[in-house]
Structures are given as C-alpha cells and as structure tokens.
C-alpha cells in the first residue's frame, strides 16, 4: 500500500501521528511528515484508523 497525502487539505492536526506513529509524524512547526509512505501490511489497521480520524480528509492509500 502507498500512503497519499493531499497537502492542500492537511492542517497538521496530528490525529494520524497518534493512530500510526511509525508512518506519520508532526514536526515542531506543526507540519506533517510521512515517515514511511509504503508501510508494511502490519501497519494497515493503524493507517486505516489514521485515514478515518483525519479531520480534513487529507489521507488515502493506494493499493500497489
């Protein structure tokens, strides 16, 4: 799976960081950084929670 971020929508709320800390992090300026844009299958539940929780609907995955 490939993680996609719509950077026009992301406001750095950081819900994704809580849901999937190995995939997403927020830097000190409050901006999102994707740590791993092709996470392993074991991260799927966490990534799906991050997508569901994103308040601005900025996240998606693309199946490879």
């Amino acid at each position, binding site marked *: 799976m490939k993680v996609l971020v719509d950077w026009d929508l992301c*406001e*750095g709320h*950081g819900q994704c960081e809580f849901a999937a800390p190995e995939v997403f992090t927020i*830097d000190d300026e409050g901006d999102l950084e994707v740590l791993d844009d092709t996470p392993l299958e074991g991260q799927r539940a966490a990534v799906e929670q991050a997508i569901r929780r994103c*308040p601005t609907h900025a996240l998606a995955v693309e199946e490879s």
Partner: protein
Amino acid sequence: MTAYVEGPEVDLMDLAPFIEGRENELLAALREHRPLHWNDESDGPGFWSVTRYDDVVKVVSDPATFINGDGTQILSRKVEGSTSTVHNTDPPRHGPLRKLAAPHLRAMRVKEWQEVIDQCVDDLLDDLEAKGEVELVKAAAALLPIQVLGQVLGVPREDCGLLLDWTNRVISDDPEYMRGPDEKERARNEMFDYFKVLTEKRREEPQHDLVSKLVHARLDGEPLPWEDLAAYYFVLVGAGNETTRNLITGTVLAFEEFPDEWERLVREPELLGSAIEEMLRYVTPIRAMRRTATADVEMNGRTIKAGDKVVCWFQAANRDPAVFEDPDVVKIDRHPNDHVGFGWGIHACMGSHLARAEVATFFRKALERGIRIRPVAAPDRLHTNQFNAYKRLRVVIEKEG
C-alpha cells in the same frame, strides 16, 4: 423507523438526572427513539440533541455547516467572554491558530514532559498511601492535571492552586463555586491579570514552555495580540483541568463497578493503554459540545434550520450499540475502540496526548505499587449537564498483597 413523539418528557436542561448519575438511561432513550431531539430552553432558543455515533461524527466532521464560532456550551453564551478561543474559531483561521500550540502538545512532545508527570504522580501517590483514606478529587485527581499543565505552560508550582480556583469558577455554574452573579467575569479577569504578568516575563526571557511559544509565535507574520493570547491561555487552562481530573475519578468509579476488569489489569498491565481508551469511552468527561448550523440540514427525517443550536452528545455516541458491543460494559481490551471521548474532527482535543499520559501514569504507578483506590461513598457530581464531573469522591487506598 421509529415514529417521533414530541413532548417535554425528556428535558436535558433538567440537571437532576445528571447529578444523580441517571443520564445514560435518558440519552439511550433519545438515541433509540428520537435521535434528533428538540429541547426547549426556558431562557434560550432551544437546541437539537444528536445522540447517535454516526450523526455526531457527521456533525463534527462538517465545520462549514456546523460552526463553533457561536459558542460550544449548550447555553447560548461563551465562558471565555468576548475573546475568541481556538475552540470557538472556525476555518479558515482555526487551522493556523491551532498550529501555534498543537505541535507542542503532540504525542512525541509529551514524552518530554513524562519526567514531570512521573514526579507529580509519585508525590500524589506517596501522599495517598500515607493518608490511607482521602477525598480523591481534592487530594489527587484535580492536582495532577493542574500541576502538569502548570509546568507545560510555565506557571510555577506554587501558583497552580490559583489556576484550579479560576477554572472551577469559570467553567461550571455549580452554586458551590459561585460567590456572586459576576463570578465568571471576576475569575476571568483575575486569570488574565496573572497571565499578563507571565506574558511580559516570557516576552523578555523565553523559557521552554508553552507561554513562551505563544508569546513569540506569529500568525500571518504578526505576533498574537493580547486578546488572542489570553484566549489561548484560557482554553488551555480550562480544557486541561475540567477533563483529566474527571477521567481519573471516573476511572476509579468504573473499576469499582467492574472489579474483574481491575483484576485483569493487575494481571495484564500491558492492557493499560487500551484500558485508558475504554475509560475515555465509558466515562466521557466531556459529555457534549455544541455547534450552530449555518444552513438548513435534513437529518433523521427532520430539518435543522440555519441558526439552530445543535448539541452533539459524545456520551451517547460512546455508548451507541450500533458501534460498540455491550456499550454499558467496561472491557479494558476493547478493540477497535474509535470512541469520541476527545471529540472528533478539527476541534478534537488538542491536549489528548497529555491527558492520556497523565492518566496512564497515575494508574501505571498505582499498579506498580500494588495499591488499589476504592470508593467508600457515592460521588458528589458537579451540577452541570455538559461535563461528567465530580466534586468529591471519598476513597480508601488498599495495598494489594
């Protein structure tokens, strides 16, 4: 589809069920039979109540149609007075304003405060163990969040009692904390006077604290004016206090109600993280937040009119059987658990990571010490329908052998 029966029989402005701890029955009845419920107000325009999980998430996920700018209290007023907090700010200003503080409260940053949290919890538990029997809210539950928040903000520990007093007087309408009709305004002004001094100190000499970050922050290239700073301090102090203390107290009560779950946690302390999430769901320290509709919206076959107040009952959503199996039962290993205990959407709690860390540390250290905190009397609940809040809970500290 259940037929709607209009009538005065469920009045969520009647505080009696909330004070007596019967509110979940009422909310369940609404969720099942009248998921969009109109409630008259004796001194206000009335409001809609939304109680189903999917509906609550829908409302709070649509900040264009359901705004915070007209207030988030059920009553038509803003506790923060005329200043506009990040919580009562709508997009497009909301995102950049939130970004000024949010990065400093995020999950990874909270780890830097862990030592402070550990120290506070150790001191409190030492005290509890020494006394053996205490009133939990005063002795620990109210102190932990205020002491931690004080250090995060940069307020010296000896002044934390002031923060607590201001919060009590500003947030609730409980007659116990109200010394006069203008009490909220007086408490607000005292708090703002205090923070004005702290702001000037940090402007000249920044420290590693949140007040320093906000004082030196820029929004659209400009420093925040005093009104915005004051609003920020206000929301951080209020939200940091009237919540975590109730999660701690509520958790003690919930484990007394479900003792097998405590026993299981003793055996399997690795479940602490999911146990805290379960308590956020089951306790729901903030029962409800209000929005205001900006357009006519159809929901559950009825029409919310533009300008109507819409109250989202997180407490009811968190016990929606359509989402949570056995919703009235505590299961410390519940999974998944997409509760709305911290709200949902762009206004979801900014301090959630700090709150989780505080409560997890409190119970982790209690487990490590082999102590169990048990209520010996029913709690005194705060006179409010918006917060699941406790004024007093008498407890004994039992040492487990």
